[in-house]
């Protein structure tokens, strides 16, 4: 196959994006990038910050990336295994934890205990070469370490608590932009699906033309969870707490699981924690214990849900201007 520089723009329509990032608009698609650049005077190139040698290297890398992305079916991660290393004092962790598609695993531990290091180890595919000495396996095998620096194969999507939208777009435009950057086949269809699903999670519905910056906290989280479920290529989703306001948390987790994500959730909320099958207890930088959620614990879940509903009902009383008289410990 000819080098990308010698293929006509019409044979590689995506190439115009690369030129546009240098402020160059392509009108004639019947010429090649090499011909196009040859016709730009040298001082114009310098004005644009283009050094031809570097430019053509980047151009070939761009074309190679794009082709790879088009042919990439995504990673098929069925399971992820964390093989223990040691904590901050050098005590061995003695654990081997396998997380499979559709699992929800919770992470508990005080701030600074090492939760982000665990996540970083997973994202980095630690191979005994990080401060914890942990190793990560994918589908039971040592992964190809070149994935570490690959944007396309980013293993972990993070849904953080203090997330903001900085773009001034409507919900529809926002999701559409994400879909387009991911080169999905039918971005409009995908966008409609994501907004519909987000509305099933959100307490109060929003319209596709609502600006993302005016969504409520619950609506924003609902939109981001639906977007991550359907558009993020990363097979692992880390959820950093889901506040109990304006979003159906149970449905939100179910959606991620249904889309075959491996869910890791840092939470100290009893209801969320019990929805996980296991919880990883982090202490002093290491995995101190892995607790399986027992049947006994699951029984507590029902009582906790009832309590939660009562609290929610009281919030609604406050919201509608009511009073909270005569509340004592009998509500538990």
């Amino acid at each position: 196959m000819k080098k990308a520089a010698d293929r006509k723009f019409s044979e590689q329509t995506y190439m115009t994006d690369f030129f546009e990032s240098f402020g160059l608009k392509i009108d004639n698609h019947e010429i090649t990038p090499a011909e196009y650049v040859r016709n730009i005077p040298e001082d114009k190139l310098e004005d644009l910050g283009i050094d031809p040698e570097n430019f053509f290297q980047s151009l070939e890398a761009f074309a190679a990336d794009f082709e790879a992305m088009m042919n990439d079916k995504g990673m098929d991660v069925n399971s992820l295994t964390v093989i223990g290393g040691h904590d901050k004092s050098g005590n061995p962790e003695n654990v081997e934890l396998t997380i499979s598609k559709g699992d929800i695993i919770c992470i508990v531990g005080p701030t600074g205990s090492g939760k982000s290091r665990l996540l970083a180890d997973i994202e980095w595919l630690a191979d005994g070469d990080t401060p914890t000495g942990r190793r990560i396996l994918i589908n039971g095998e040592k992964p190809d370490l070149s994935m570490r620096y690959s944007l396309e194969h980013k293993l972990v999507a993070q849904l953080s608590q203090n997330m903001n939208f900085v773009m001034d777009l409507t919900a529809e435009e926002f999701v559409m932009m994400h879909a387009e950057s991911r080169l999905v086949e039918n971005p409009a269809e995908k966008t409609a699906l994501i907004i519909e699903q987000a509305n099933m999670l959100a307490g109060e519905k929003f319209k596709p033309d609502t600006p993302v910056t005016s969504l409520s906290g619950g609506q924003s989280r609902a939109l981001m969870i639906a977007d991550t479920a359907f558009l993020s290529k990363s097979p692992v989703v880390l959820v950093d707490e889901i506040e109990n306001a304006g979003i159906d948390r149970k449905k939100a987790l179910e959606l991620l699981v249904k889309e075959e994500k491996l869910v890791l959730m840092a939470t100290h909320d009893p209801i969320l924690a019990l929805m996980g099958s296991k919880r990883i207890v982090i202490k002093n930088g290491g995995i101190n214990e892995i607790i399986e959620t027992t049947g006994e614990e699951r029984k507590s879940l029902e009582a906790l849900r009832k309590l939660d509903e009562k609290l929610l009902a009281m919030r609604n009383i406050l919201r509608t201007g009511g009073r909270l008289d005569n509340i004592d410990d009998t509500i538990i």
Partner: protein
Amino acid sequence: MKFITVSGPPSSGKTSVILKTIDALASRGLKTGVVKFDCLTTDDDKLYEKKGVPVKKGLSGALCPDHFFVSNVEECVRWGTDKGLDILISESAGLCNRCSPHIKDITAVCVIDNLSGVNTPKKIGPMLKSADIVIITKGDIVSQAEREVFASRVKIANPAATIMNVNGITGQGAYELSRLFISGDEIETLKGRMLRFSMPSALCSYCLGERRIGDTYQMGNVRKMDMEE
């Protein structure tokens, strides 16, 4: 000694990223020093000093900051060698998005933040487009979708670079970045090395201190906008 050029728009998080990476390098027993280039004033040198990192400050004042950089960088490398450093990092802000301190065959890093907006990557010139490593910061305060869109825009602007997310506050990603810092070549001097891209040319009456406005006062390398249509 290894030398690394780090540049990026003002307030993109260069100092935070460097500080966290120095921690990771120190845990491997490596001694790192920093030369901080700025225009008018900076207090960042104090942040380095507080950590016990050898630091040299260079203020360009009335001179073009990047011309100032390139006129001093060789001396900085000598300073680093004399101090017995394993790694020397130069930190400079790309103030007009056209400048770039990057040098051929010297690890070149550009730091850019998620909050700067998805159209920013294409507005930044050789500083971003010729870097070997692009670090994206402030990922913790934007949504996952925005992080992904932003990273894909960076990738269009510089497809050959290694693109990494580093959190300057928690340090997530800094350890991984430190591995790339130590993979560069050992150097003794920069004499004879080439910049990756020419510095913007400017030699007009205003470079020489002219303040009056109007055709009569404009001499030398002057260019006019096309006001037709």
